[in-house]
């Protein structure tokens, strides 16, 4: 029973963190149609924000405004200088953001070095959860992610800004005709997407290896989630995370980590082949 509960919690944790990581790409790719190849690098910037605050002797929470500031400013500049000119040219956007990802990795590498950074444990220890000892930080992280997604879901469904974003995505000319500054709204949406990637980096930094090349894995897993879940809906993001995270966790537990990767890759290929719009596409 304890084993089932432990594996179940690990599965929930894997799905939740994957959903958090993929959220930024889901926003930028799903709503704006921009395949942001630098998505993982914004996760990396968030993780390095934790390293910087730790080195400065500040608590991890200080990394949140730092990551938001850095990712927000970089995202704003990238959208304004590069992405906004390429909205109708997806392949060019992909190439441009790929180049950006290399640049961001190299800048961080030059600034902080190539080696792994050691991040102190946050909330060390475990709590008793239905008879099993579960890491405190993971439990807090799960609660924060659940709360964040719940609020985001309600905000997107009910707020005027959520309706404006949906309007901009579905009918840009009409959105402009009713007075919505679609260029500004697209910029803010892009900034929001990269900031959530940065926040994911902050949240995961104490649990993962922090180094300049860490973003590549996150880009791939986020992409697989969107392939399975489809673009343009939070439901798709959560279902995609469940399928990808669940498959990886189960197969890796039963066989080996490599088998888990292969299973995820196989599922993604099958979806691209048989159901290219994913399970919950709104586009």
């Amino acid at each position, binding site marked *: 029973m304890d084993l089932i509960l432990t594996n179940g919690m690990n599965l929930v944790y894997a799905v939740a963190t994957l959903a958090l990581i993929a959220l930024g790409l889901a926003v930028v790719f799903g709503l704006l149609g921009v395949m942001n190849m630098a998505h993982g690098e914004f996760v990396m910037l968030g993780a390095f924000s934790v390293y910087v605050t730790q080195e400065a002797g500040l608590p991890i929470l200080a990394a949140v405004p730092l990551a938001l500031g850095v990712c927000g400013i970089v995202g704003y500049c990238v959208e304004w200088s590069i992405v906004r000119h390429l909205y109708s040219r997806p392949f060019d956007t992909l190439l441009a953001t790929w180049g950006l990802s290399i640049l961001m990795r190299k800048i961080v590498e030059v600034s902080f070095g190539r080696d792994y950074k050691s991040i102190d444990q946050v909330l060390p220890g475990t709590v008793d959860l239905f008879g099993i000892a579960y890491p405190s930080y993971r439990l807090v992280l799960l609660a924060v992610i659940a709360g964040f997604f719940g609020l985001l879901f309600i905000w997107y469904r009910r707020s*005027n800004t959520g*309706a*404006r974003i*949906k*309007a901009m995505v*579905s*009918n840009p*000319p*009409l*959105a*402009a*005709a*009713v*007075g*919505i*500054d*679609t*260029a500004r709204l697209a910029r803010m949406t892009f900034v929001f997407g990269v900031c959530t990637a940065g926040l994911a980096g902050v949240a995961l930094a104490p649990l993962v290896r922090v180094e300049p090349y860490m973003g590549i894995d996150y880009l791939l897993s986020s992409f697989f989630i969107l392939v399975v879940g489809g673009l343009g809906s939070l439901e798709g993001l959560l279902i995609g995370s469940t399928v990808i995270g669940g498959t990886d966790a189960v197969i890796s537990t039963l066989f080996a980590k490599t088998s888990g990767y292969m299973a995820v890759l196989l599922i993604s290929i099958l979806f691209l082949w048989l159901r290219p719009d994913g399970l919950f596409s*709104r586009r």
Partner: protein
Amino acid sequence: MTALLDVNGLSGGYGDVTVVRGVSLAAGSGQAVFVTGRNGVGKSTLVKLIAGQLPAESGTISMKGQDVTALPAHGRRRCGIGYAPQEGVVFDGLSIFENLTLHRPDRDLTRYRELFGQFPRIEERLQQTAGTLSGGEKKILSFCRALAEDTPLVILDEPSEGVQPENIDRMAQFILEAKAAGRSFLIVEQNLTLVEEAADHVYLLDHGECVFETARTDNLRETLSERLQI
């Protein structure tokens, strides 16, 4: 006296294809100016240029004396140019309520009270997705949104297309009342009944050029029918 809307030598189209060539027109306060002509002569392209949906190749567009030619569509809306297009008239994935309120910070439906009185089906289905409406109902929803705005100029592109005759009469009545209150209209329309009911001035387009214009006359329908070779 400065016209509310003043278009001078406007040309433009799609990419390298010029559709509208050197069109000039004006609309004063409280006037309904109609643009008519056969299919494919550039009527919708003309109003897209004026509303900022397409960039102008040459010419100028002034609103209340201010040159708005270089402004984007949302900037022109803020300068007082409302626009209800011919196609893609509603946000299909949003509810009717959201379609009517998403551009208003207060999300208030009070301004639609009179319109709901004449078009009760809209109010009855506020939570319904707009994409499920018929073509005519979408046109009415688009008309209601444009009319309820506080813009001094309203551009309507084929507002009566697919709309039942009795609802066209109601639209005409709203246009007349708004005119009396000082609002102006630029309307692309082929339905001569609506033109006859509400027009103060009519421009006839052919091959992207203005080939005829007339102020309101007693025999407006006959004049236009003859010109349109109906």
